[in-house]
């Protein structure tokens, strides 16, 4: 791969197209799986009419949403209103550029030399993910405000408060991992877990718990789906959105779920590593490609999302805030101190 055009333009372009396509397809199918799985949890079948077991349902949904009349309510702030869905979908897809889906691979010898199955590995990946994914909140706030609807406005405000409150403990939880790994690069974090012979979830169980709960809160999912709380705010920030504009909010939510699950996989569950990577007698598990390990772990987290949605009631706004500020921030700080102290005692880090 000596030709710089191939190395710096063609290959990344192909990777971007493939990853973007996969992620968009995955988000669309996530909606299908959610409906099926919630159906199973609720002793019903879920959508099963379109195609074999309903597998074409997302396509039918997309067609329906595309064909739907594009309604812009008459008294909205038009530019802001229309930019809301864009603002939320773009960051939620951009962050996938740094998620390491697997180790460099030759695709079973099809390629002349190994290619990393992710767009790029920047040395501040963690910061990039947290920064860019937080940007999506503007879509919610601006969309809620621009809709000129009191329920939307309240949804947007709730979302903003929720994001600020939960970004902090989530950051602390991630810092605990960074202390253990000693790097901000996601690939290096996975590598560190391989070298440490243990997934970081075992030393960092508290951090993982905080990270995942905050992740649920950040993606506005049950039991923390206050910004859209159907029973209270009708639809919250997307009350006035319909058709493809609504679909963008919808897809962004699922993309964020996949993102949080991927990050949890990378930070705490060893990314593409098989379980207990240092135990030799488990090496028969290596026949499963690393990419599939990654997908399986992400799917496990996504199932938890759906499972929680099928089980829990919704918390109240003030209780959500209290949980964030009074429980998670102190606990995550304490956890950080403990982990830091242990690392110092064990040899002062790297």
């Amino acid at each position, binding site marked *: 791969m000596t030709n710089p055009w191939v190395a710096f333009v063609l290959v990344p372009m192909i990777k971007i197209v493939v990853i973007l396509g996969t992620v968009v397809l995955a988000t669309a199918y996530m909606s299908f799986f959610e409906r099926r799985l*919630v159906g199973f*949890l*609720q*002793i*019903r079948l879920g959508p099963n009419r379109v195609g074999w077991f309903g597998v074409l349902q997302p396509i039918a949904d997309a067609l329906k949403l595309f064909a739907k009349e594009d309604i812009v309510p008459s008294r909205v702030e038009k530019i802001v209103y229309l930019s809301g869905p864009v603002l939320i979908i773009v960051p939620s897809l951009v962050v996938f550029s740094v998620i390491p889906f697997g180790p460099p691979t030759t695709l079973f010898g099809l390629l002349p030399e190994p290619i990393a199955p992710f767009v790029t590995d920047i040395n501040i990946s963690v910061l990039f993910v947290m920064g860019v994914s937080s940007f999506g909140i503007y879509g919610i706030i601006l969309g809620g405000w621009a809709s000129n609807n*009191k*329920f939307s406005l*309240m949804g947007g405000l709730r979302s903003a408060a929720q994001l600020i409150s939960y970004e902090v403990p989530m950051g602390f939880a991630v810092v605990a991992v960074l202390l253990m790994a000693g790097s901000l690069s996601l690939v290096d974090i996975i590598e560190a877990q391989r070298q440490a012979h243990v997934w970081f979830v075992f030393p960092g169980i508290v951090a993982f718990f905080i990270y995942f709960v905050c992740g649920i809160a950040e993606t506005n999912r*049950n*039991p923390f*789906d206050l910004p859209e*709380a*159907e*029973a*209270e*705010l*009708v639809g919250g920030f997307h009350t006035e959105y319909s058709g493809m504009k609504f679909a963008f909010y919808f897809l962004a939510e699922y993309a964020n779920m996949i993102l949080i699950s991927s990050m949890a996989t990378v930070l705490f569950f060893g990314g593409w590593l098989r379980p207990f990577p240092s135990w030799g007698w488990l090496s028969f598990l290596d026949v499963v490609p690393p990419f599939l390990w990654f997908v399986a772990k992400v799917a496990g987290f996504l199932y938890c999302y759906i499972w929680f*949605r*099928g*089980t*829990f*009631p*919704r*918390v*109240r*706004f*003030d*209780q959500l805030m209290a949980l964030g500020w009074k429980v998670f921030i102190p606990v995550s700080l304490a956890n950080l101190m403990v982990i830091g102290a242990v690392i110092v005692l064990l040899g002062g880090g790297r």
Partner: protein
Amino acid sequence: MSQDLYLLSSLPDSEEMEVSFGPQHPATHGVLRVMVRLDGERILDAKPIIGYLHRGTEKLFETMHFNGCIPHTDRLDYTTAAANNQAFVGAVERLMGVTIPPRAAWIRMMLAEMQRLASHIIWLATHALDIGAMSPFFYTFQERESILDLFEEYCGARLTLNAMRVGGQPFDLPEGWLGRLRAFVDQLPARIAEWERLLTGNRIWKQRTVGVGVISAADAINWGLTGPPLRGSGVRWDVRKALPYDGYDEVEFEVPIGQNGDTYDRYLVRMEEMRQSLRILRQCLDRLPDGPVMAKVPKVLKPPKGEVYHSVEGPKGELGFYLVSDGSTQPYRLHVRPSSFINLQSLPELVRGGLVADLVAIIGTLDIVLGEIDR
């Protein structure tokens, strides 16, 4: 209840916001509209606005013969048709001096208790859904279907039963019905335990309901609350015990009460009421008397001149019918004491100072049905 609720939007500098909650809102159980004045998320005042489902039922009653009124009572509170039938035919029978055969009374009691179960199941389903727990809706409705199947076998309808007539019951129980009811009664406690596992101990459920919408016992009586909202506040009062009708003085059951008068206590009271209903049903199954199901009543019903008020303990509270007759074949005036109407009245009192999410929880805990409120 402030008179100038509507004027607030003209105050430009106000930090307060007024929101029209309903009439088309997922959590208002129909077409209830609540004008809420908010400071952020905190509710300063609320004003229920009703009447969107007003069908003039009381006026219509005046144009119908007595048995023809019964299908219309089904449609008052459409989740408790059997209780409505029971209260109405009870009023007419009381005015006519008809005593119904014991078997008919016991069948009525069974239907009423099944209806109470069905109504409480709907309440649990919608209340949990309002608070965000989606799945109990489906689990509970599966059991409600069993009750409706039994109704269908008995009278041919599932929701609007039209299952009682003045003077008794229009038909006897079908063959095998008691066995199927017993099977249902035997398996429901396990189902209730499953629902409770999802909610009763759940910390989120407790956070959302404990201390929300508190009303003291004295206030509850003053506001005229009846049914589970009254008992949740610790008043042990139930029409079935206080003014027994049909066979209720012959069966044993407890009247559960709460202590704090909050949403959680009302939840617990209703869950316990479901178990007590099962207890009554079991006694009915064991002791159902034999005999005819219809007393001798003339084909054309002509109650004497006079007035009578008959009330039953409906699933939502005291449900009464005030019947004034001028001696003709139609009621001169038929007034309904709708339990949800009077229970809803205390809504502003309960939600003041709470959050928007509490409003939803409190509407759910009052267990209102707009068909009865607006009539």
